[in-house]
């Protein structure tokens, strides 16, 4: 499924709400135009009746118009609240479906592709770009709001004379055409994003060479270089805002001309009707502004959608076809393999390839790994252990004990529910290693893959861990693939693969 189809499916349950939102938005504009137009009519008609003497004044039916004026005022308020609430609730809840869907696709993508995505890139798509899509969804009612206001203004103009209605329609068409033309010629689709992207990329490059900047005093030179990139961004931004502002200005000028034309064609009819047409037309043209604003933001949403789609549409991982053998070795409980080679020779790379992290799909069947850089999930100890599959507390404590981490975790006030990482307990390199080891122990798989499992441990603890590991391998009937530059664990292996 491509992103387009997925987004549609995510929005589908909220469609009725969105239609209702559009109807209410149209209602708000209708009320705004009707309120001002009717007020103008009422004033003028009242003045005429008032001037016609007491009799004419008493014959003037003021109940109905003034009741309608109040009705429009109240309806406008209620419809506005409804439109805003319904539109946003639909958009927000739809995006609460889109975000996990996006994450799920990322997890399901080929590791060779998904692991190459930069964190900053992925998170800006996941947070900012999806928010842009959300705003776009909210903005979808804008054309209906504009149409409602324009139609109501057209009807009021037609009430005065058919010529006024025609004049109004012609000016609306002209305003729309001019705005379209301006956006077509002035908007710098993508130039802003491109300039910002270049600037970001250059800053990232420069931050990577910070020691050189410090050692060779390159600061001023690099800042000048960044300044030139800022100039380009500034120019692109100015161009975009220019299109928005110019379109709005054009509509305002055309509104003035439109009112003059309406006055000219309707001055021979009733004065009250002319007042109605003039005020309705001026309010009607204003509702065109909402449409222009939506148009201005459509480009932002489109770019966001393209970026999210590239993340969503990464090729899917292949889950089958993992062999039961690795080279000449059977991947089962009898395996006791050590991979040897000087540092930098690619042992870790070999392990990552074996697990499928550099390929089209991860082998989740054969291996229970403890990775070299021992990543820890920001979350609780329990959440970290549960990654290996559902395990009861006894098994968790057993695994922690075998990894020589039990006493450390027990001593924490919240035990297994202690938060690790940002705002929680910080583990040392060795402790991270042992937590990773415990996690690997909890995963039921034929072969344990341990990359430098005792890195950062003192000799005594190391001996304990190796002892327990030997016992575990026998008890669980698990095989072992080991990388270790340290002596103690190396004796667990009976076969050596030199690379």
């Amino acid at each position, binding site marked *: 499924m491509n992103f387009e189809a997925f987004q549609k499916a995510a929005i589908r349950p909220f469609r009725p709400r969105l239609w209702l939102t559009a109807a209410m938005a149209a209602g708000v504009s209708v009320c705004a135009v009707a309120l001002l137009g009717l007020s103008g009519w009422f004033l003028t008609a009242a003045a005429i009746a008032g001037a016609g003497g007491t009799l004419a004044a008493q014959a003037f039916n003021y109940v109905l118009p003034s009741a309608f004026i*109040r009705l429009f005022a109240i309806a406008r*308020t209620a419809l506005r609240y409804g439109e*805003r609430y319904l539109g946003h609730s639909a958009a927000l809840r739809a995006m*609460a479906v889109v975000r996990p869907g996006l994450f799920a696709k990322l997890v399901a993508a080929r590791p060779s592709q998904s692991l190459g995505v930069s964190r900053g890139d*992925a998170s800006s798509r996941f947070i900012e770009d999806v928010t842009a899509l959300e705003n776009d969804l909210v903005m979808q009612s804008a054309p209906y709001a504009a149409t409602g206001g324009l139609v109501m203004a057209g009807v009021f103009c037609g009430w005065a004379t058919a010529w006024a209605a025609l004049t109004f329609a012609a000016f609306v068409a002209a305003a729309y055409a001019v705005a379209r033309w301006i956006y077509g010629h002035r908007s710098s689709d993508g130039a802003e994003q491109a300039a910002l992207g270049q600037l970001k990329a250059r800053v990232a490059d420069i*931050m990577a*060479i910070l*020691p050189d*900047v410090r050692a060779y005093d390159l600061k001023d030179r690099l800042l000048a270089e960044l300044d030139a990139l800022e100039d380009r961004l500034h120019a692109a931004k100015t161009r975009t805002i220019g299109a928005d502002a110019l379109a709005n200005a054009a509509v305002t000028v055309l509104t003035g001309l439109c009112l003059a034309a309406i006055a000219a064609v309707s001055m021979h009819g009733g004065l009250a009707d002319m007042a109605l047409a003039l005020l309705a037309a001026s309010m009607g043209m204003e509702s065109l502004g909402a449409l222009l604003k939506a148009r201005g933001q459509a480009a932002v949403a489109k770019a966001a959608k393209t970026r999210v789609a590239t993340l969503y549409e990464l090729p899917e991982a292949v889950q089958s076809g993992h062999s039961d053998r690795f080279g000449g070795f059977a991947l089962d409980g009898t395996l006791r393999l050590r991979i040897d080679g000087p540092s930098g020779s690619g042992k870790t790379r070999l392990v990552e390839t074996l697990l499928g992290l550099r390929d089209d799909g991860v082998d989740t069947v054969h291996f229970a790994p403890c990775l070299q850089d021992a990543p820890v999930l*920001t979350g609780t100890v329990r959440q970290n252990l549960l990654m290996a599959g559902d395990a009861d507390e006894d098994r968790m404590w057993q695994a922690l004990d075998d990894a020589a981490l039990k006493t450390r975790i027990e001593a924490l006030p919240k035990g297994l529910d202690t938060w690790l990482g940002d705002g929680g307990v910080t583990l040392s390199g060795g402790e991270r290693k042992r937590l990773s080891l415990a996690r690997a122990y909890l995963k039921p798989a034929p072969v344990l893959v341990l990359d430098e499992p005792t890195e950062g441990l003192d000799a005594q603890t190391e001996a304990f861990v190796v002892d327990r590991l030997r016992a575990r391998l026998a008890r669980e009937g698990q095989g072992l693939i080991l990388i270790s530059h340290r002596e103690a664990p190396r004796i667990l292996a009976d076969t050596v693969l030199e690379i």
Partner: protein
Amino acid sequence: MPSRVSSPADIRRQLKTWQTPQAARLRLATLLGVADVACVAGFAWGLSHMVTRLWQHAPAVHLIAWPVGAVVLSLAIRAGLSLTSQKLNQDIARRVIRHIRRDILDRALSGTVAAGALNDLFADTEALEGYYARFRQASAQAATAPLILVALTAVRSPVSAALLALSLVPFVVLMALLGLSSAAESKRQLDALSRLSNLFVDRIRTLPLILVFADGRRQTAAVARAASDVAERTLQVLKLAFVTSAVLEFFSALSVAMIAVYCGFSLLGELPFKVPEHLTLGTAFFVLALSPEVYAPMRRLSAAYHDRQTAVAATERLMALETGSPRPAAVALAGAPAVVFDGVATGFHDDPSFRIGPVSFTARPGAVTALTGPTGSGKTTLLRLLLGDGALLEGRILVDGKPIDDIANSIGWVSQSPPILTGTLRDNLLLANPRAAETDIARAVAVAGLGPLVAARGLDARLDDRGSGLSGGERKRIGLARALLKDAPILLLDEPTADLDAASEAEVLAVLPAVFAGRTVILSSHSPALVALAGQEVRVA
């Protein structure tokens, strides 16, 4: 790490401080806002005269030419003003943003802001655009335009002005109450959003782990929970915003309706109470045309309110960056010093659960110390500490017995992939020492083994910042030549022979002893041949 919490007053002050250099442009923007009100009045005047004249006389084009002209002209000027004002405000916003960014990058390059804290620099600075380009102007207009319009109304019809003013009072009170209660809600919403963002970034970081443990489903469920939490909390915040906008809509509609009904009944002569004024159709129409404009600036303000909230959240994070401690004065070292790492621990900003060390060793003056250890064990990070890059979490570093100050100008540095700047090869060498003589360059070129490159392309060959056309070995040699030209008492080399083939490695190894002579050298390497050049080896786990 950003940690300091700023009060709302601090944030408001900071937003004001940032705009101070743009004072002249800001005054002009305010002036344009006031001129806009004059156009509104011109428009209303034209409309009301059009109606009055047609009422008093038989319809004829020449009668309404002036008022119609006023309407068209007012709107045209208004269009021009709004065009200028939007561009001006956007320009102000861009200038402010540039200024902040330049300031922060300046400090980041000086080492007083940690590089890791810059992850959100662009998102946070760009988030200020709406505040300076829209909200500020809308808020200035909302504070002045309604009052000017009510005053204008009062000149023609004091009773109508009183009605408008009366509708403004409960409106302002209600807005203040809603504003107070929404502050706490929006804080909760921003917290939820930041939790979601952190969760996502963390799960991308640990994606390899999630993949090998086939834990995608559980993690997706966690993301789904956080995402729907954000949606519901945002909706809570927005509900208040919607009430606000409904209240605004109500008073805006109410003011028009009240004016219409009052003026209508007054013109009919059917007012149930006595008023101290006699209304004409012209006045009534003028007042009616002004009335929707009284609330228009506040509607624009409400539309831009989101810009303000985004900017406040961003400012809070940017202010947390501001608090980096100032760098100590630069110190120049006389000769090759002793460098002592005493229980040094460090870490990364984007992975707080990871730390490196503690590591202890002494690099003796004029001797070579090699740091070894697996990839990712933190050798580079330890070297970078000496250049003031990175956080010293524990322990201390002593240079000639004193705690480390800014000694960057006493350090020669050869990174894994020495950066190439756009310019000539000579430029790229001279940046290590702008005062170096031709003979110094020639010597450095010869010792670093750059002779063949210079012979082939010349010292004035143009290079770009991707280093196109240079081999990995040539880049390394440029790095070595820089270190030679700088002639600093401390030399740090990060994997000087990594990624080189055997022949290039041998060539680089051959020139190193000449480069090392008379300096305190600390290098990181996997290469046994290189480690053999060192007087001591320190293993980093």
